[in-house]
């Protein structure tokens, strides 16, 4: 659905997007994840046809966004950052106006507006003035606008920014419901959001795509290095010897804990799960075990790890 090859975008001497390539298949929900200024919005603006790339090709549904701009724009529903709306218009009137601009006929636009208003939970505020709506409703108006011409590709730039948890939940549910029928590209800097909604994550930093995988795969990739923490009451020397004799342990660190317990941080070799072995060891030696946990890397760790070296370079 989206094919980006060697996309570069420079603004007056500053490179916002630096030679990125990625593809998105039909029906996928893909999250663009990265800190502010990573080039997410710029990528989306190029995709939506608002501005051209400095170099590289971008295709949406097989059409070049620059050369077949109108064809691609008809297929894209785009909600920019901060969701700009006309505050003086009424919800229904605004959506109808937008539907007409997107080339829908008079009858068709009426029908579609009714459909998306129901889909986005706007049915009861249709006659309200947009400027007087709550932020959550405004966001839904923006979403309804992106959906109104039933586009193949929906691009949402930070759709949940500035909403309260309740509103975030409803917006997320709405976006999730679009999977399969539409292809969705979302940008965000909130990690749990991508974990919840997206089938695939593209991590962007400093104008480049650093990683692209499913949230689960990214976690698995990191799990190899994940530590096991065990709190065990045992003689210190016996503990040290036990870890040294366990072939699956690559590294260990023993620190005194509360009372007679020692806190051991163990790094496994080759992604082994050390927990059953530790349990057996404790049992055979008659020690007591108080805690046994494997620190599961969240996307947050992955994100920090992927973006960290570059941050230092910049500094």
């Amino acid at each position, binding site marked *: 659905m989206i094919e980006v090859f060697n996309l570069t975008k420079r603004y007056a001497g500053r490179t916002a997007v630096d030679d990125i390539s990625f593809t998105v298949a039909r029906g996928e929900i893909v999250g663009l994840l990265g800190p502010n200024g990573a080039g997410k919005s710029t990528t989306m603006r190029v995709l939506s046809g608002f501005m051209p790339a400095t170099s590289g090709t971008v295709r949406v549904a097989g059409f070049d966004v620059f050369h077949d701009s109108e064809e691609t*724009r008809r297929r894209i529903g785009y909600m920019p950052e901060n969701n700009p709306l006309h505050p003086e218009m009424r919800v229904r009137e605004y959506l109808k106006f937008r539907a007409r601009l997107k080339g829908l006929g008079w009858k068709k636009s009426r029908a579609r507006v009714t459909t998306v208003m129901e889909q986005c939970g706007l049915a009861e505020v249709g006659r309200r003035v947009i400027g007087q709506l709550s932020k959550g409703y405004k966001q839904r108006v923006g979403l309804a606008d992106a959906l109104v011409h039933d586009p193949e590709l929906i691009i949402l730039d930070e759709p949940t920014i500035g909403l309260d948890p309740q509103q975030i939940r409803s917006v997320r549910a709405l976006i999730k419901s679009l999977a399969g029928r539409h292809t969705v590209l979302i940008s965000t800097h909130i990690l749990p959001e991508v974990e919840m909604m997206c089938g695939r994550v593209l991590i962007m930093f400093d104008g480049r795509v650093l990683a692209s995988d499913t949230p689960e795969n990214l976690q698995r990739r990191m799990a190899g290095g994940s530590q096991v923490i065990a709190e065990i009451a045992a003689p210190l020397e016996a503990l040290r010897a036990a870890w040294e004799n366990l072939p699956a342990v690559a590294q260990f660190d023993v620190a005194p804990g509360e009372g007679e317990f020692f806190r051991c941080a163990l790094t496994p070799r080759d992604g082994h799960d050390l927990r059953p072995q530790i349990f057996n060891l404790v049992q055979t030696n008659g020690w007591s075990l108080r805690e046994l946990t494997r620190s599961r890397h969240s996307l947050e760790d992955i994100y920090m790890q992927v973006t960290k070296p570059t941050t230092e370079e910049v500094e």
Partner: protein
Amino acid sequence: MSIFFTLLRRELSSFFFSLTGYVIVAAVTLLTGLSFVVLVQTLQTDPSPMPVTEMFYLSFYFWLILLLVSPVITMRLFALEKASGTFETLMTTAVGDLQVVLAKFTAAVVFYLIAWLPLLACLFIIQHYARQNGALDPGTLYGMYLGIFLTGCLFLSLGGFASALTRNQMTAATISFAGGVGLFSLAYLARNATDAGGWQAQVLACFNLFDQMHDFARGVVDTRAVIFYASTTFLFLFLTLRVVESRRWK
């Protein structure tokens, strides 16, 4: 075409949704009303053989309205949309750049003509009380409104261009006001220029807005003036279009 009308409708209605729209109409009505009072007072003391439209033109209110009102009408056209971000949502729909420029310009012209309607009422009142057919005949009336329309097109296209250049409405208004004053000064120069001859003088003569408008107000339609206004309007519309397109090659 239907997209053009959708845009035009929205642009026009936004004038009436904003306070600015009503302030503009009120200001124009006040100024035409003032000129009406002045006109009636002069007519009371010394009757004149001139058509009413010409008398109205000779009071300076006409230029005051043009200079002050056109920047206010046009300042929001592009600048407001750029500032609020709706320019981005607008340009990522199926609309073309030309459609947007033309729709915004047309809306400004239509609104400008609506703002001038109270003048019509004033003119009819005078004619009614003067009880002379010569005071206001259809020819001079059409001429006057054609002149108002054409000068309006020029000033509004200039204002639209200024608005496309910036995202700040006040800057847009200032640029178009400065441009308007520039045109006005050229016109002043042109009128007072001695017949030096040469091409410079001929070019300058084209900018003689005062005499051109004076002709319109007398019901004289000079093709040269019509062509001058039409071509300068096209020039500014073309420049506006280029500025709107410029995001594609910046």
